[in-house]
């Protein structure tokens, strides 16, 4: 079992496969390759934090596990943060481990429009998802751990009415500690730093942490390895250079915001490199109730509705956030803001994630930083308004006294007869505080090498032994949480590599 963290000395390794990125895609691909008998090196830019290292506060989470303090933003008319992790296990450490199967209509669309997949492909994805659900102990949120916010959402949706359900998550025996976003110290969430990555090491693999990849090594059009320099996580001081040669292939799963820039910086050329960026930007409506809700108790995200996934294109779900985040989310400042915080325990926050039509671009900026150009189209704002209005209706149906829409230009609080203000809210995206957490594209799959960077097995068109195995290959939005799809795709690609 080998783990190599930051070091001053240079390092050279040779393995069968090198995998860049240890999130849902990278860890799953590395695991499948190792299970198939290959020697694997898994390279992660961030440090390895065990549950005992996990932060408790949001400050600690931003410092220790978020990618560069969560400073990544998409730039359009509005600036929206992009939330990802940078640590061994990637975003699986800080997400809510939501497990939703890849919808059939999505994959049928890929086949119809892009020539990607087909029935055998769909069956392979679902077969892997069957297995992943068993391996990662997918469970419906137990009632005892649901928490009042999730139960209220269920009650409100039933009264509106629309369909909803307790979430299925990769969480074994959730105790409702409400700390999904900081990493589960209770060891219940099956994040991949606890699951697939230790198995990679047990099978003889090597994990390099604090090791941001700078370049894919190419010989002609064949990928032969990866190089970069270790980086100390606190001081960001650079250490020794690592070079990992790959006898059989390089798998890139560095995240939607990093994979395309890494490939481009390595000299991998494709006219669609970085294009096709898509997301499910989301924001919430806070309901204020007469009694304590204590949204920080119970599953951080425990209830969802996908009834409107296709029309108009959005997902409704609960999300609890701690006081230090609510403090900046509430409008106002000074005495007024502090007085508003007095209602924290009676608040429940539910969110809408919009299945946006907008398409953007990921690229490397002037100073080498990641740059995401992305802006909402008007239909997306209209979806957002519908979703926010539905959330407000759901809160009132669940018994809320008032809602806090958090929309610039609208009153701080609204009553049940004022939901129309949200439905007719501003069309300017700058009026909304959105966060993008489900990201897709940048090196999308397409049968036609002129239209997509990768083929249906993640292989980069025109290159040998170079595979992308993260959400960068996903050519459309899904309308559901993407982790299950990313992992199934990564396992499919890895098994195809082994077969080849």
């Amino acid at each position, binding site marked *: 079992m080998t783990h190599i963290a930051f070091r001053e000395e240079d390092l050279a390794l040779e393995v069968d496969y090198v995998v860049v990125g240890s999130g849902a895609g990278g860890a799953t691909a590395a695991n499948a390759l190792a299970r198939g008998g290959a020697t694997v090196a898994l390279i992660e830019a961030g440090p*390895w934090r065990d549950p005992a290292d996990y932060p408790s506060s*949001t400050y600690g989470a931003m410092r220790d596990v978020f990618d560069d303090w969560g*400073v990544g933003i998409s730039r359009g008319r509005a*600036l929206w943060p992009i939330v990802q992790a940078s640590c061994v296990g990637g975003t699986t450490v800080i997400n809510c481990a939501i497990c939703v199967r890849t919808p059939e209509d999505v994959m049928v669309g890929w086949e119809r429009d892009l020539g990607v997949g087909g029935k055998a492909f769909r069956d392979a994805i679902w077969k892997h998802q069957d297995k992943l659900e068993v391996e990662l102990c997918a469970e419906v949120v137990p009632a005892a751990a649901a928490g009042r916010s999730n139960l209220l959402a269920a009650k409100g949706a039933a009264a509106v009415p629309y369909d909803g359900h307790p979430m299925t998550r990769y969480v074994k025996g959730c105790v409702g500690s409400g700390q999904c976003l900081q990493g589960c110290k209770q060891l219940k969430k099956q994040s991949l730093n606890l699951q697939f990555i230790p198995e990679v090491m047990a099978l003889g693999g090597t994990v390099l942490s604090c090791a941001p990849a700078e370049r894919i090594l190419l010989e002609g059009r064949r990928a032969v390895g990866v190089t970069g320099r270790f980086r100390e*996580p606190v001081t960001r001081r650079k250490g020794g250079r690592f070079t990992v040669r790959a006898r059989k292939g390089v798998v890139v799963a560095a995240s939607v915001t990093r994979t395309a820039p890494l490939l481009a910086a390595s000299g991998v050329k494709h006219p669609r490199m970085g294009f096709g960026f898509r997301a499910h930007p989301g924001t919430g409506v806070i309901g204020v109730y007469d009694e304590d809700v204590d949204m920080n108790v119970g599953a951080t995200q425990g209830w969802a509705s996908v009834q409107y996934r296709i029309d108009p294109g959005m997902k409704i779900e609960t999300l609890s956030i701690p006081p230090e985040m609510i403090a900046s989310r509430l409008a*106002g400042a000074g*005495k007024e803001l502090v007085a508003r915080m007095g209602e924290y325990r009676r608040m429940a926050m539910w969110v809408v994630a919009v299945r946006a039509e907008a398409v953007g671009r990921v690229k490397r900026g002037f100073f080498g930083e990641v740059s995401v150009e992305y802006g909402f189209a008007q239909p997306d704002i209209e979806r957002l308004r519908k979703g926010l209005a539905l959330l407000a209706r759901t809160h009132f149906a669940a018994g809320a006294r008032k809602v806090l829409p958090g929309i610039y230009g609208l009153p701080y609080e609204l009553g049940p007869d004022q939901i129309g203000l949200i439905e007719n809210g501003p069309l300017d995206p700058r009026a909304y505080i959105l966060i993008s957490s489900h990201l897709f594209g940048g090196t999308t799959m397409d049968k036609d090498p002129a239209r997509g960077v990768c083929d249906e097995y993640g292989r980069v068109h025109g290159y040998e032994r170079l595979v992308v195995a993260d959400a960068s290959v996903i050519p459309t939005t899904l309308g559901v949480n993407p982790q299950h799809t990313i992992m199934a795709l990564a396992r499919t690609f890895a098994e195809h590599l082994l077969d080849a």
Partner: protein
Amino acid sequence: MRVIVWLARSAMVTFYPRSEQFPGIEDMPLDEYIARFRRECAPIIWAGFVLGTLLFHITPLFTVFVPLPAFWLSAETRDRHAQRLAAHPIYYVRQPVFLLKMIAGLLWGADPKVRAALGLPPYPADPGTWRKS
């Protein structure tokens, strides 16, 4: 740098003042927090924080119509200035101020005294550790 820290402190105290229910951010180790934040955060976030701080202090003329920097205003006028700035119609004014408010909120909202006032247990310390071998 000491001037920036002093200005930031003044702005943060305005955003999260003492109230009957809660302690103010001035009752917390604010200087230590700003120093730690500067040391630990990404440079671009620090730049945004400084921009938000400067905007807070140079804009009272446009919010409360007083041609003085915010630190010279009375507490009541400064509070009104903060409220209007947080809801400023210009997005690129609102955003750095939002960042300032968020960074102050990360300290204020996670403080054991604020959590106690909300009836919540204190957070355990953030270890800041990682696996080294």
